[in-house]
């Protein structure tokens, strides 16, 4: 071995040079082959296709969309649908997860076991199978629109989806929004004021009750002052289908149900391990201070449990967003289904489209992990 190779620094530099040469060489090899193959097959390159007409329709779109719209519009619709289903998925999975997680810790043996059975069942079945089961079995066997399950003439459950009333916001609805914001700000201020007063004088103030009252009363007052601008449009059966109101398609519902139920198992486990990770001594100390069980939970256990539970819960939210891409199997028009699916088949520009799709998900992941880092930094135990 020549002498200079015995120097660790030089060896390190050498290794890196070799890596770079291999890596760049590999990239070059791939790029050359790809360029050649693309030319051979007559596939177009570049991002001009984004401005070309898509030529197909999308079954559900939050923004106006026609077959004359461009592929860029397809991308936007896909992303919006991904975000919509993810948002509701996050809401429902959090609710179910919270309930199941608390049940899992319940001293009641029966409830405890039911929660455990729920977790072990749904966590261990692939989420794609659950999506297909909801879509092909549960929702497909619901009654037809003619014989729909009718809940108080407002919600209709059929094999073509769920039909619900839709709220129409007329003139003056902005007053309700403003009232809501004012109420939230007032609660924040109230909370601070009450805490300062308690620190100074020891007197307590019923912040929670006042807050709830404010949150309900202010928007209600605004609603009345503005002259009841919000009206509900109810779905009505016309011929073979319902008109008016809000429609939730079976594709959306199957995806939403499966994702919520599946992700809820992981959220429940995260909540349970968070609460269980609080040392027993903390609870005993709280008891010896004379705190009631509810106050123990609120003031001692939860603040410590949240620090442990929230990061993994946020990770599960991210998983849910990524899993929403499985809609490709049932055709809910989200990013992967219509952009990386239909648009890709129409244009044949797989490389560009998949790159855009991946970068979009990457951006979402990045934003979520930024939130996570911010949370971790905020929640870090402050040692003095």
């Amino acid at each position, binding site marked *: 071995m020549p002498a200079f190779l015995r120097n660790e620094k030089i060896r390190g530099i050498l290794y890196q040079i070799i890596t770079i040469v291999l890596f760049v060489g590999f990239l070059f090899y791939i790029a050359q082959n790809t360029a050649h*193959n693309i030319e*051979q097959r007559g596939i177009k390159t570049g991002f001009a296709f984004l401005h070309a007409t898509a030529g197909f329709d999308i079954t559900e779109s939050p923004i106006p969309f026609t077959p004359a719209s461009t592929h860029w519009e397809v991308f936007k619709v896909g992303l919006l649908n991904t975000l919509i289903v993810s948002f509701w998925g996050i809401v429902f999975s959090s609710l179910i997860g919270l309930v199941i997680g608390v049940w899992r810790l319940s001293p009641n043996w*029966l*409830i405890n076991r039911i929660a455990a059975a729920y977790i*072990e069942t749904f966590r*261990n079945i692939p989420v794609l199978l659950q999506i297909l089961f909801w879509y092909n079995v549960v929702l497909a066997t619901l009654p037809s629109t003619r014989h729909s399950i009718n809940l108080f003439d407002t919600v209709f459950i059929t094999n073509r989806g769920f039909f619900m009333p839709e709220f129409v916001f007329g003139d003056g609805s902005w007053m309700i929004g403003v009232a809501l914001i004012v109420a939230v700000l007032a609660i924040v201020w109230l909370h601070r004021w009450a805490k300062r007063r308690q620190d100074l004088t020891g007197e307590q103030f019923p912040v929670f009750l006042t807050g709830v009252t404010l949150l309900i009363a202010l928007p209600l007052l605004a609603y009345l002052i503005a002259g009841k601008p919000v009206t509900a449009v109810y779905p009505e059966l016309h011929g073979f289908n319902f008109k008016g109101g809000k429609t939730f398609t079976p594709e959306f519902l199957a995806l939403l149900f499966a994702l919520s139920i599946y992700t809820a198992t992981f959220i429940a486990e995260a909540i349970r391990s968070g609460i269980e990770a609080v040392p027993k001594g903390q609870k005993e100390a709280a008891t010896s201070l004379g705190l009631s069980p509810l106050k123990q939970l609120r003031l001692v256990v939860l603040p410590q449990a949240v620090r442990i539970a929230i990061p993994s819960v946020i990770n599960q939210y991210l998983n849910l967003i990524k899993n929403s891409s*499985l809609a490709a199997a049932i055709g809910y028009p989200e990013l992967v289904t219509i952009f*990386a699916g239909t648009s890709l088949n129409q244009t044949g520009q797989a*490389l560009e489209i998949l790159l855009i799709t991946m970068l979009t998900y990457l951006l979402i992941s990045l934003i979520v992990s930024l939130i996570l880092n911010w949370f971790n930094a905020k929640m870090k135990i402050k040692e003095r």
Partner: protein
Amino acid sequence: MAVYPPKPAKEPPLLERGPIAWVRHNLLSSPFNIAFTILGLAILYWTIPPFVKWAFLDANFAGHTKADCTGNGACWVFVKEKLNMFFFGFYPQDQLWRPKSVIAAILALVAFAKFVPGLHRFKLLLIVLFPVFAFIMLHGGYFGLPLVETSKWGGLLLTLVIASVGIILSFPIGILLALGRQSKLPIIKSLSVFYIEFVRGVPLITVLFMASVVLPLFFPEGVNFDKLARALIGITLFEAAYVAENIRSGFQAIPKGQYEAADALGLSYWQKMALVILPQAIKVTIPNLVGTFISLFKDTSLVMIIGLFDLLAMVNVTSNDRDWLGMDTEGYVFVAFIFWIFTFSMSMYSKRLERKLNTDKGK
């Protein structure tokens, strides 16, 4: 002298012992608790009896055709008749002894490993040799075995092939990536970090699309991967990033003294890592690794979207048979049950390991 034998202790009151006490403490300790118990019973009443009725009491087990399913319950005749499809896909009927003998060989090896103590020394050799044996048996083309194209593989067989190849291959790649991420060399480190974070930020389905649509463009004409190979590449490269993160978390649990001690012994980088650091890091992180492998096993079901006929895809295939239309409920329940058995036993195994590793630390 008078003898005063001690009286036997009085038994606790009836309400405080045995099953009665257990019920009182665990189900009826407070009004709140009683309400919960009633809620629990209601849930059980709504879920268990209908399911038992459908799956067992009203179900049909005997017969060979759809006409034999007369009851209102499940038609297990369908699953029975299509069992070979669910397990082996389109594998030729007269060649089924081949996958069966591979599975028998796996079971025999596992049993041997438990009872023959010397076998552990050949572990690495087996891990290398067994896949070769399995491939020759399944794919054929050698030793007079007729060729069975991978497009004929399907069902549970394909799921297990994808899962095991994914696990075996993603492990070394994951280790290399984790080492790269720990490395002091900035270029190697940043390449590893970029790869790991990129892959972890995108859904598996996009990686699979990439592997199935774009990968063929990367290589010169004439180099053809079959569909299965492309899916395997996609899954392996995807899971490797997750394995790497698991192993990195193992690295973080190794005290600095271990590195210094290895350095002091004059071990080279690779000796230090292979003999001192990695064995400990992997041991610490085994429960996490099993968790990753469980999700890999569940993720194998995604290959159906790129057109492979894995266990889940077999539900569509079998229930689209004209003689068996409308049997997808049975199919899904059966397939869910098989997936569940595998993943649940893996998670039980990881829990047991976790407990075992915990006692080692004297906790």
